């Protein structure tokens, strides 16, 4: 016997919502999904009338759904936002070049302006070149640090007021777990925030309108809407530790589907002892980007690449910052430790 939609009670249900367990028909699912994102945007006061908002677009399911939903909601509820797509080209052959093609198609489908910033133009290095020097290990560190800054730089070039990213509930829950496992208190404190203010993570405020949307529902939404998205894993080594957290989260979700929201709830309600040291935000003395050290992470990584010492930015080498700033050579012993491991 076909199950009827628990919302309209008429049409046949096509899916069971992973988030609540209700069976819904296609139309009701679209409506509730969009409505929930709208509720998140309104209750968290993510946008103001007339703002220019860049959508961090990778061509993947999350950012494609985000771009689609934001465009729909912007028209439906008259947010008065000027939306545009912002993509980062890491320079990964066989991965990013293909996904950027998707973004370019999205640009036409949604009629939104698109800006692509590439690692090559910003840093003079593509990820392919970095991996050639660094190897398969630790290259995610470079990519992650550079992407964060690349998005900000792109956003500043476009003079946008806000960046929104496609992080979903699964991503947030996974980050809570991972930061907890790593004991990273300052990130644990920040990671559940739906938006960052300018003194937080980057220079341009960021927000996650899909923070409470389950990954599974995003996939279903993209599937039923027949959205054009790109789904391939990055060809370079995935982050092993995050992989553990992800696998654990999936198992938890299988046992109790609400676990994802429960973890976010936990993260939102954690509070920390007074007097736990938090890094003080400052700015990088070389590029001016926000940094808790004298040099920002991406400048250190870049310096390491340019000096042929890729490990300079991996781990903690704050003591060497003075030497880097003064353009002094490192001692032989220091150099030996920071060279790429021989294979």
């Amino acid at each position, binding site marked *: 016997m076909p199950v009827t939609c628990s919302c309209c009670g008429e049409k046949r249900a096509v899916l069971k919502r992973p988030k609540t367990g209700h069976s819904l028909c296609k139309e009701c699912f679209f409506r509730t999904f969009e409505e929930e994102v709208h509720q998140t945007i309104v209750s968290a006061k993510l946008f103001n009338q007339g703002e220019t908002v860049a959508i961090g677009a990778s061509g993947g399911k999350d950012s494609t759904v985000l771009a689609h939903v934001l465009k729909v909601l912007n028209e439906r509820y008259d947010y008065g936002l000027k939306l545009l797509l912002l993509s980062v080209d890491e320079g990964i052959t066989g991965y990013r070049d293909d996904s950027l093609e998707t973004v370019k198609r999205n640009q036409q489908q949604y009629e939104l302006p698109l800006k692509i910033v590439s690692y090559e133009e910003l840093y003079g290095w593509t990820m392919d070149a970095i991996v050639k020097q660094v190897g398969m290990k630790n290259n995610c560190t470079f990519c992650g640090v550079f992407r964060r800054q690349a998005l900000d730089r792109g956003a500043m070039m476009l003079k946008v007021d806000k960046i929104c990213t496609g992080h979903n509930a699964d991503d947030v829950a996974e980050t809570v777990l991972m930061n907890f496992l790593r*004991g990273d208190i300052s990130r644990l404190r920040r990671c559940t925030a739906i938006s960052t203010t300018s003194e937080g993570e980057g220079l341009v405020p960021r927000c996650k309108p899909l923070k409470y949307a389950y990954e599974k529902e995003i996939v279903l939404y993209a599937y039923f809407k027949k959205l054009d998205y790109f789904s391939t894993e990055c060809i370079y080594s995935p982050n092993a530790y995050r992989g*553990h957290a992800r696998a654990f989260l999936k198992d938890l979700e299988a046992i109790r589907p609400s676990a994802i929201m429960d973890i976010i709830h936990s993260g939102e309600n954690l509070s920390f*002892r007074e007097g736990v040291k938090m890094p003080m935000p400052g700015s990088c003395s070389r590029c001016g980007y926000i940094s808790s050290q004298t040099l920002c992470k991406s400048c250190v990584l870049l310096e390491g690449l340019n000096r042929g010492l890729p490990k300079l930015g991996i781990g903690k080498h704050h003591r060497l910052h003075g030497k880097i700033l003064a353009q002094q050579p490192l001692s032989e012993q220091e150099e030996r430790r920071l060279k790429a491991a021989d294979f």
Partner: protein
Amino acid sequence: MCQVDEEYSGLIRSKPSPISYKKCVKCKHGSAVLTIRSGDGFSFKLQLGPFEQYFYFVLQGLSHDASKKLRFIPGIIYVDEGGAIGLSTEERKKTISQLEDIFQNTSYPYHIVPFEEIFRLPASVLETMRPTSDHSVSSYKWAVAQFTQDIRTGQSRESRDPSLEDCFSGLDTRDWSQKLPPSADHTEALKLLFASVKTLTAKEDLLQTLRLHLILYVARQAGYTKIMVGDSCSRLAVKLLSSIALGRGAALAMDTGFSDPRYDDVIIVRPMRDYSSKEIAFYNRMFSVPSVFSPSLDTMAPDKASIQRLTETFLTKLQTDFPSTVSTIYRTSEKLHTAHPPQSSDAHPAARCLLCLCALDTTADDCSALHATLQSEWLSQNRGRGNSPVASGPNSAPDQCCSSVRGCATSVGGGGGGSCCSSSNQMPVSSDLMALLCYSCRLTIKDMATVATLPQYVVTEADRRKRR
């Protein structure tokens, strides 16, 4: 009454430094000597159940070394959960007789309490007692003065607070040492209770919560002001991570801290939290500490049977790949503190969870995981309303609506000011109950087929709070 506090601080100081501890792991001869030292505080310790079974036992004090002698007389509380797990009467009797042998050798008072006793608990166990000490300097001084006076009058043993006895004078006082077997009715009720819980995750959570109530009651009856539990850092790491997954983030510090003040008059302390389960196992082996194995709810269960179980498996595996996992998690927990300090809840006694007695974490603002979930549930089952609830004031409408679906903490008083849309009242029985619970306890109760099987004291106290 607080003299025991003093003793604990002594214990903490006598802890071996991490460096000497490392040495002792490396060299076997050294280890024995150092362990004896660290063991001074707990000259004799019971580790029941070698397979990480939850057993709440009271650690033993009184060293042979007179200079560090502990000056309190401990008692042992053992909760026999056989009825909840479904063990036969013979199995339970066998375990208890083994335990009694061990307990008798200690010559300390002991209380073997069948889990069935939860059906005879008074509702007062869930009431918030007046806070006896606010940990200020003056109260500390008072406690010290009280202690020295106690010594002089020679009543240091299990010093009972006379005012505490007043609290209990109205209750029916039972002698736990009567060792009456639990009545068949209660065993049946216990079976029904656990059968009505649909998931192992919720079963484990409920067992733990109700057991604490029982221990709390026994402790109050016997006049104990501290409950020591044997949580090791390995177990606490599992508890921390599973608590996160169960939505207990707000209560994390209380659940796992060195001292847990949520019951006000009885404080739960975890003196073993600096030791790993491995160290404890070694200690027990070297000193031939007797132990008894007894199965628990998840014994023999598959790895993915419950969230708690999954977390344990996950952490054990992660620990082998990344050996610092447990200690990192454990150190993270030390940087946490309770979201809503219990002292402040004095003015609003209703703002505590009915079951776990932690401050309610359900009064979150509009942009929160709780609110988003309620919103999703509401949107998924309300037809025809279209966009109206959203369009008509997004900040106020959902609040009123959700209180009818699951009960918002904000409308504990009921009614909710008339504008409440009385749509789907799915769970008329438990929606009232839900309002009295914290986020995580709601999840547990949600996994129950019926709340009619809950022990009477929970229902009575819920009614009392609702009337307030």
